[in-house]
């Protein structure tokens, strides 16, 4: 299940294995390895394309290609593994990626706000997210001490603006 745009919804993307055939017009995500291998063919398709970027590949290596993706999926192998936070910030802040940025893997309620601040706008969550109303997690704290990819005001600048 997907938490996106303030609601729970079904995932309309198919996450293609490296050996699975590509169907025409289908919106799919591919692995980074497949992207590197089949880049020309994938660009030639007439359908939205998504990329699953591993934690050990810097988004910077994708260069201008990032704008070809409608979706980039970053992984949290364990919720304690925070590499994807930096990848997300690089995608949004450094590279100007404007497509959807999705958190997958061990996505838990109490990390959602951190993720959104770093630029994620979609979250793969389990069924419990509905019962436990994970949407409330975004509103628990609204005072921030750093600038981030959500472009929300942060305290150091708010203070000077008031002064």
């Amino acid at each position, binding site marked *: 299940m997907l938490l996106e745009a303030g609601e729970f919804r079904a995932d309309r993307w198919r996450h293609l294995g490296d050996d699975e055939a590509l169907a025409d017009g289908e919106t799919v995500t591919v692995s980074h390895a497949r992207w590197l291998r089949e880049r020309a063919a994938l660009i030639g398709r007439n359908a939205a394309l998504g990329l699953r970027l591993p934690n050990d590949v810097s988004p910077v290596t994708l260069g201008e290609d990032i704008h070809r993706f409608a979706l980039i999926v970053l992984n949290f192998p364990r919720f304690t593994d925070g590499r994807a936070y930096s990848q997300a910030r690089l995608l949004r802040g*450094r590279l100007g990626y404007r497509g959807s940025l999705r958190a997958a893997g061990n996505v838990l309620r109490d990390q959602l706000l951190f993720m959104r601040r770093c630029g994620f706008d979609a979250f793969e969550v389990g069924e419990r997210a509905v019962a436990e109303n994970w949407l409330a997690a975004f509103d628990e704290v609204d005072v921030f001490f750093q600038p981030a990819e959500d472009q929300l005001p942060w305290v150091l600048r708010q203070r*000077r603006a008031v*002064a």
Partner: protein
Amino acid sequence: MYRYDAYDQRFLEERVAQYRDQVRRRLAGQLSEEEFKPLRLMNGLYLQLHAYMLRVAIPYGTLAPEQMRMLAHVARRYDRGWGHFTTRTNCQFNWIKLEETPDILADLATVQLHAIQTSGNSFRNTTADPWAGAAADEIEDPRPYCEIIRQWSTLHPEFSFLPRKFKIAVSAAKAADRAAVKVHDIGLYIVRNEAGEVGFEVLVGGGLGRTPVIGATLRDFLPKRHLLSYLEAILRVYNQHGRRDNLYKSRIKILVQHLGIARMREAVEAEWAAMDNAALALSDETIADFARHFAPPDLPPAAEADAAFEAVLAGNKQFARWVEHNTARHKVPGHAIVTLSLKPYGRPPGDCTAEQMDLVADLADEYSQGEIRLTHEQNIVLPHVRRSDLWALWHRLEPAGLGTSNIGLVTDIIACPGLDYCSLATARSIPIAERLSRHLAAREDEIGELKIKISGCINACGHHHVGHIGILGVDKNGEEFYQITLGGSADQDAALGAIIGPAVSSAEVTNAIDQLIEVYLSQRAAGERFNDTYRRIGAAPFKAALYAARPAREPAYAA
């Protein structure tokens, strides 16, 4: 001192409410212990051997009297009447109930205290020179920068799940480092460049633990305005490239060792050049806003001593000893920086009762402009005391057990909680500290400056690597043994101690330390401290004295 504004207070109250809900969900079974663990750790709550332990942050070791009184309240109401001040200048309460922790945090929040990020793999409490704002040798007060760092590092969305914990220290007195800057993940010295501008020398990759390393200079001079962007660049490199496969190889020091300082510098500078560092730039006005919170108190200069003070000193040897060891020169003549020892002879280092906390708060109000500091050596500092008040102050300290005259001496021991409390420990630390303290008290003046530091396991919370004499507890087939290192230092001459030889048994520690001290006393040249002698004559004479009378194989004296 820094005083919260509406933003800070709102944040803290939101955070307490958030944590209260997390505890509710844990108690209701919605969160597994595995899922709850990082949440409680972000709020400084550990599960120890016997109970939960709450570690309250004391940002850069600075406390106001009402904050100290609140710690006393927590000790009385929620614990067993005392707290423990740590080497990270935090305050630990060892007998805490999980269901009471939201109330404790709510109480603390009323005086602008919290336990945020005193654990977990993120930024820990930033530490500073405990003499900040009072010492004559600092270029600028480091506390405004510590507060700027504290705020920026609070719930940082990108860096709350780093490979491992992350510690920053700031000092403005490089020639007399009182903040152990060189053994931090990032160490910052406030320095002046050739053009006369004030900025930071940035060190990276220092640390103790299993792999002790002295930090290396990453950048000679960083302009103040770029402090946060440069820190962010370092952390981004670390967050992406630090190891996550092995808990003991995850600190930034291992990354720096792996890359080498030159390549680390290249990576950080490249990240810094590529990032939008204007977003984090600190304007002069912003820095001034923070500095105003730390404006020096209005202390009228006075004579260092008058006839009356001299007469009292001459007439009371105990008082004179205390003045000699526990007071230091203040930048304003006629004032002193006073250290209250939390190392009474034969007692656990760093423990402080609720009554003592209340007294320290009162004394800070009466004698020290309402300011209290904690040191990484686990003592308390009153930074702004008139010399003419020392006599009256000392009389209040003595009956409360806070007047021990041993700062910097051999009984001013650092020790971690060890196996008496800690679930990581392999041996006890506190009883060793107590025994050594009791045994060495009578000779401490003769011995002079000698820093003993004791850790109960290789995680090195007792900083044994940087003790002049370091003692590390190890487990050998279920028995406590102690490995001794010599020649370490956490100060401006930072060095890692060298292991002298096979570990000694618990029963032999006191005797062994005695033998090492004998070598020093018999070999020292005039004016030499322990480390000076050790560095001059080397380890051999110490080794000979320690092991001559002992069989070479450890198991022989395990019997």
